[in-house]
């Protein structure tokens, strides 16, 4: 562990040296006027300076992560995001002291953030979003994302404006529109922070999806509100007319629905493209990523919600593209997305730490305190009201503990910070206070709430996600329950047989699947069946041939049945036979999914894992309810 820390420090020093040399190098060239001679090799830092710095950053962040995870004590107590911010603070401090921080490249640039750093994270979230829980809880998520965010904005805005008249803020004037702009950017829960924290505490799927879904979908609301108040501030409070208000309200629908539509369109086009990529499987991951990124950029271009666009693009692609592309491309896409999002997350948190150490601050104790308090208080109140409202129609009620975790998980993060940085100081004179307060809130939520939410979850015995591999019987019974419940819902008519859902399902089956998939799942199964059948025949023929020479014990039916009766006494022989049978049936080009690799243990568990995998792939899927 100490070696790694010294490694990190070494890298830091190296980086600093390079920057110092870079500054020196420039002056060196100007002062000398040497006669020209041939140089075998030149030190040409100019050429690579920017890219070098970025790459060094990425390396630094990754090494830091590696270092953190080596120390179990650290990772148990602190979420990764905290450690990365601290690292950013340290580097920022160093750069500040050595006066290199004047160069603008070392502050979080909002354009960089919104165009490069944010999209991969959101895409990964959308692509891996578990669809069933998401749509089951969609009502709750929408209610929270839209109404709760509005509620929070209004309350926080009014509170701050109210307190602005009192001497707590030290007599600096805050006008109403500025307060509301600030409230708009600070009240939205941040998906990056939620993702970083919740993935480490492993709460159950439903709770996770409610908080995370809320943080994704509230982007539309917070963008609209931010833009409305920002534009109103630009127009000037005196010049506003009724039309401006109406258009503001209308823009909400345009932004959210526009984003969703753009996302779905790009997703569908991507699926259609993958229909033809059978001969160029190498391009498949690229196609997926490019289309998703285009969706994001297009929405940003027409100023609708890019986050919504890329989320829905990812969700749509997941449904259809996974049927079309080869298994290898599927695994590759998964890995590339995870890698990109991990890098971007690291960079974001480090940059946040780095940007904190600068001169652009104006600390106003009263303001910061009031902000933090009102964020906390109104979050709790908002969740209490709206979760209880949602319980009226929910099947699985949200308990008090769920509500506590939901309020506690309302973390603010880099999005709020970036939005604060791009405020126009001429129109919003209090920008520096806002930036400081935003950083304070972000630090408070990420550090204090992030660190304590883990122990809180354990202490309150919140239902955790099942990480262990379920037993065979559990799997079977799970699947059986799904089938039984689907059937019963049909019998009792409570699935709403003539409803929207059925119409969507039919539409999907008859039109979308035919247009977008290379071959319908039905045909695919038949082809697979034929292949497997041929293989089984071939293999048993081979085995008969071999046994006649006494080389391989035959797995033919008679011999096998006698050995299965002795199963419980000699498990090893069963597994050996089973592996052989499995090997006979796996098609040749199989690349097992990533989870399969992860579940490989020592040898005698390997067959167990194979059996599980085999069962998983062969059980009939239950229809989504």
């Amino acid at each position, binding site marked *: 562990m100490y070696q790694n820390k010294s490694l990190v420090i070494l890298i830091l020093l190296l980086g600093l040296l390079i920057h110092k040399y870079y500054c020196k190098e420039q002056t060196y060239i100007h002062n000398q006027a040497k006669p020209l001679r041939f140089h075998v090799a030149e030190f040409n830092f100019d050429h690579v300076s920017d890219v070098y710095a970025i790459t060094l950053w990425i390396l630094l962040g990754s090494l830091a992560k590696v270092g953190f995870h080596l120390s179990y004590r650290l990772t148990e107590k602190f979420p990764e995001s905290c450690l990365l911010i601290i690292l950013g603070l340290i580097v920022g401090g160093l750069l500040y002291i050595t006066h290199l921080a004047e160069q603008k490249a070392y502050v979080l640039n909002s354009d960089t953030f919104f165009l490069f750093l944010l999209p991969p994270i959101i895409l990964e979230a959308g692509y891996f979003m578990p669809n069933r829980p998401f749509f089951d809880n969609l009502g709750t998520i929408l209610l929270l994302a839209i109404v709760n965010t509005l509620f929070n904005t209004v309350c926080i805005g009014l509170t701050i404006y109210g307190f602005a008249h009192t001497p707590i803020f030290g007599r600096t004037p805050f006008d109403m529109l500025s307060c509301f702009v600030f409230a708009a950017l600070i009240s939205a829960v941040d998906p990056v922070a939620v993702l970083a924290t919740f993935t480490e505490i492993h709460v159950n799927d439903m709770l996770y999806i409610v908080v995370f879904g809320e943080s994704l979908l509230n982007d539309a609301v917070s963008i609209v509100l931010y833009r409305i108040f920002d534009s109103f501030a630009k127009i000037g409070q005196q010049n506003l007319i009724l039309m401006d208000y109406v258009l503001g309200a209308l823009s909400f629908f345009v932004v959210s629905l526009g984003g969703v539509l753009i996302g779905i369109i790009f997703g569908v086009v991507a699926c259609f493209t993958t229909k033809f990529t059978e001969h160029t499987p190498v391009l498949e991951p690229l196609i997926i990523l490019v289309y998703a990124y285009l969706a994001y950029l297009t929405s940003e271009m027409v100023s609708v919600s890019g986050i919504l666009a890329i989320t829905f693009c990812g969700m749509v692609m997941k449904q259809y593209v996974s049927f079309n592309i080869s298994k290898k491309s599927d695994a590759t896409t998964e890995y590339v997305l995870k890698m990109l999002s991990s890098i971007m997350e690291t960079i974001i948190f480090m940059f946040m730490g780095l940007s904190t150490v600068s001169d652009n601050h104006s600390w106003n104790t009263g303001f910061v305190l009031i902000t933090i308090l009102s964020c906390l208080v109104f979050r709790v109140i908002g969740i209490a009201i709206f979760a209880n409202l949602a319980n009226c129609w929910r099947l699985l009620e949200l308990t008090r503990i769920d509500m506590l975790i939901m309020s506690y998980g309302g973390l603010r993060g880099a999005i709020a910070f970036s939005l604060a940085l791009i405020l126009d100081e001429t129109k919003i004179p209090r920008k520096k206070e806002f930036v400081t307060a935003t950083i304070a809130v972000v630090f408070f939520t990420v550090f204090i709430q992030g660190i304590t939410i883990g122990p809180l979850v354990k202490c309150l015995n919140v239902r955790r996600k099942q990480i262990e591999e379920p037993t065979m019987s*559990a799997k079977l019974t799970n699947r059986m329950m799904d089938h039984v419940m689907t059937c019963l819902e049909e019998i009792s008519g409570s699935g709403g047989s003539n409803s929207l859902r059925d119409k969507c399902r039919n539409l999907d089956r008859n039109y979308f699947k035919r247009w977008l998939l290379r071959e319908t799942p039905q045909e695919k199964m038949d082809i697979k069946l034929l292949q497997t059948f041929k293989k089984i025949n071939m293999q048993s023929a081979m085995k008969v041939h071999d046994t006649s020479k006494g080389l391989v014990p035959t797995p033919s039916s008679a011999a096998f049945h006698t050995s299965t009766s002795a199963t419980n006494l000699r498990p090893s022989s069963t597994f050996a036979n089973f592996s052989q049978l499995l090997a006979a049936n796996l098609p040749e080009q199989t690349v097992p999914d990533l989870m399969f690799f992860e579940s490989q243990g020592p040898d005698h568990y390997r067959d167990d894992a194979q059996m599980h995998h085999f069962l998983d792939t062969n059980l009939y899927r239950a229809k989504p309810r």
Partner: protein
Amino acid sequence: MGSNASIMLQQEDLQNICQQTGFTTKQVQRLYSRFKALDKRDCGFLIREDLLCIPEVNINPLGERLIDVIMEDYGENNKINFKQFIFLLAKFRGGKAKSLTTEFNTRESKLKFLFDMYDRNHDMKIDRRELLDVLKMMVGGNIHDDQIATIADHTIGELDDDGDKSITFEEFCNTLERIDADDKMSMKFLS
């Protein structure tokens, strides 16, 4: 449609059912309309063919087994009337809060229903034969009998505590401790 249903269902009956099962009157009336819609020959009870007519049930891998369970355990002589129908469905009413649980939709009764799906000879034990039957129904076509047999044996091995190669109800419940059977087996009843 709504008013017709309430005329044919006597008021005391309605109250009785609501009290015993915990449904609201609107839910019961809606289920009654559904019952009448399924009862195509309009004779006041459902038979196997009525239930098999529902397309979802037909293509469901466990559809036939489910109808077996319904007809044998909850109806009689291959017929099921409305009262039996609604007592069956009452089992699946969601209800974690104490106020909503009646004797019907306890966790035990939900698990017992699942157990009955396996155990058709009602000897309170799932033996290898019964497990194999259900497995065969749930698994795709191109599976070797030997492979299914191995899976069945492995499952029994996991669950069987006393070594008699069959699974009793207690052993069954023990395994499902970790799964949220209660939540999964609850249905939303519209009113």
